[in-house]
């Protein structure tokens, strides 16, 4: 089986428009959560969000291109450009044929869909824009990346709500490991701040009225975030032969389904996903040093995730560093796994455990070392990144530092 190197990272989120920017804010526990530019009328039950504050579409695309590309697809393309540039890889000839693009997105292009509905139902105008379909389709990001980069191998999009990006990265990892492809651009993107979608989240009553405080006793829910992140994954020997810098390694992937409830979390599914990811990596639980938790900041997730971690790791759970960086970049839904993969690889690369920001008080039901409010230098070789979705779909990645 082939080893799988990470040779490029790209990101756009509330914390910035590049990996160095985002990482700098992460290690300083700076939150990208702030009042929404449009508070809604009547106001949403939640006032804050993790908007991609510094992102200006015109910096990256022409007017003509923007007419074709929804915000979520723009995030995917911009993140991919960064990752490919860092990797220094060029997709020509056989390599182009043997490079995959696999993206995650929970809902695709909501703005265009809602605009179509407004025309149809509010303005009684039966003429819906001709680009609504290509703008809205969940694979618009994957298609744009493939078009821009000239990759001609497998390309598809996975939609498993908040696990989408982890499922996408996991599939790309397996494709390269088994030799189906030589390289892949994989990750996820999401643009959630569309009015109809925000109203739907409001009605779910899982969004915090103030901020995201994962594992803190006074946590009141998640904070919605937008953005995109992409990884260039590459056959280890191919990357070595090119002489490019290897930022880290993907070593395991596990996925499971709760078969329990459509929205309530359960301990069984997440435990299985972590266990199977470690088995896939051929590593014992004791080899793990850091977990980038799903850690949404809802009452139910954080205590169930804690119980799952204790279930899998036993007494080793007390030695783990566990943090939820959603406290800073928000819950980016279909992009979450990718944003957190970037953070996790940087953590291994820089040997610094990212903090859980906004933490106020311990919760006995979340009694792990959650790296409260301050990043911590630590010797870390292996890390997990957890994603657990509504619908009970779980996906866990295992990363290793390249020492």
């Amino acid at each position: 089986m082939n080893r799988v190197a990470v040779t490029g990272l790209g990101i756009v989120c509330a914390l910035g428009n590049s990996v160095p920017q985002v990482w700098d804010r992460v290690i300083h526990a700076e939150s990208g959560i702030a009042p929404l530019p449009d508070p809604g009328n009547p106001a949403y039950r939640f006032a804050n969000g993790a908007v991609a504050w510094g992102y200006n579409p015109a910096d990256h695309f022409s007017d003509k291109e923007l007419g074709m590309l929804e915000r979520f697809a723009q995030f995917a393309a911009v993140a991919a450009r960064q990752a490919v540039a860092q990797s220094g890889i060029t997709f020509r000839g056989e390599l182009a044929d043997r490079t995959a693009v696999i993206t995650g997105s929970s809902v695709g292009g909501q703005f265009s869909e809602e605009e179509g509905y407004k025309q149809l139902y509010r303005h009684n105008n039966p003429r819906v824009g001709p680009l609504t379909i290509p703008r809205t389709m969940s694979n618009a990001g994957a298609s744009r990346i493939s078009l821009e980069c000239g990759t001609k191998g497998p390309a598809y999009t996975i939609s498993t709500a908040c696990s989408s990006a982890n499922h996408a990265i996991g599939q790309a990892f397996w494709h390269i490991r088994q030799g189906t492809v030589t390289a892949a651009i994989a990750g996820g993107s999401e643009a959630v701040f569309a009015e109809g979608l925000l109203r739907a989240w409001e009605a779910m009553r899982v969004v915090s009225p103030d901020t995201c405080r994962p594992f803190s006793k006074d946590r009141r829910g998640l904070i919605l975030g937008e953005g995109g992140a992409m990884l260039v994954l590459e056959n280890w020997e191919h990357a070595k032969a090119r002489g490019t810098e290897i930022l880290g390694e993907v070593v395991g992937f596990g996925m499971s389904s709760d078969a329990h409830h459509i929205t309530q979390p359960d301990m069984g599914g997440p435990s299985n996903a972590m266990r199977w990811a470690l088995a896939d990596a051929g590593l014992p639980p004791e080899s793990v040093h850091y977990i980038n938790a799903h850690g949404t900041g809802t009452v139910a997730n954080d205590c169930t995730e804690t119980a799952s971690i204790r279930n899998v790791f036993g007494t080793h759970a007390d030695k783990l560093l566990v943090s939820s960086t959603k406290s800073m970049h928000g819950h980016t839904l279909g992009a979450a796994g990718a944003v957190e993969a970037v953070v996790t690889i940087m953590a291994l690369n820089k040997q610094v455990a990212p903090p859980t920001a906004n933490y106020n008080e311990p919760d006995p039901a979340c009694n792990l070392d959650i790296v409260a409010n301050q990043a911590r230098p630590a010797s870390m070789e292996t890390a997990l990144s957890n994603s657990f979705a509504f619908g009970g779909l779980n996906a866990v990645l295992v990363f290793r530092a390249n020492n």
Partner: protein
Amino acid sequence: MTEETHRDDIAERVIRVIAETQKIPAESISIDKTFEELKIDSLDGINIVFGLENEFNISIPDENMASLRSVRDAVEGVRQLVAAQPGPTA
């Protein structure tokens, strides 16, 4: 339904909302039933609260969700919010 809302009327309407959202006969729901007995989980609860907000034109705060465990809780909660409202249904 008249504009005048007295005690029994509120209970009856709450029960009807629960029956409609849960797709169960209203006769199977009494004021003394707990949500657990009616097999109402957290997602059902959100759905019921949404229905109650529409039925009574009220806004139910998130904080009230956790204490909502029975039909009686729902009726009492709605009664307080309706009473706090200005207008003919107060």
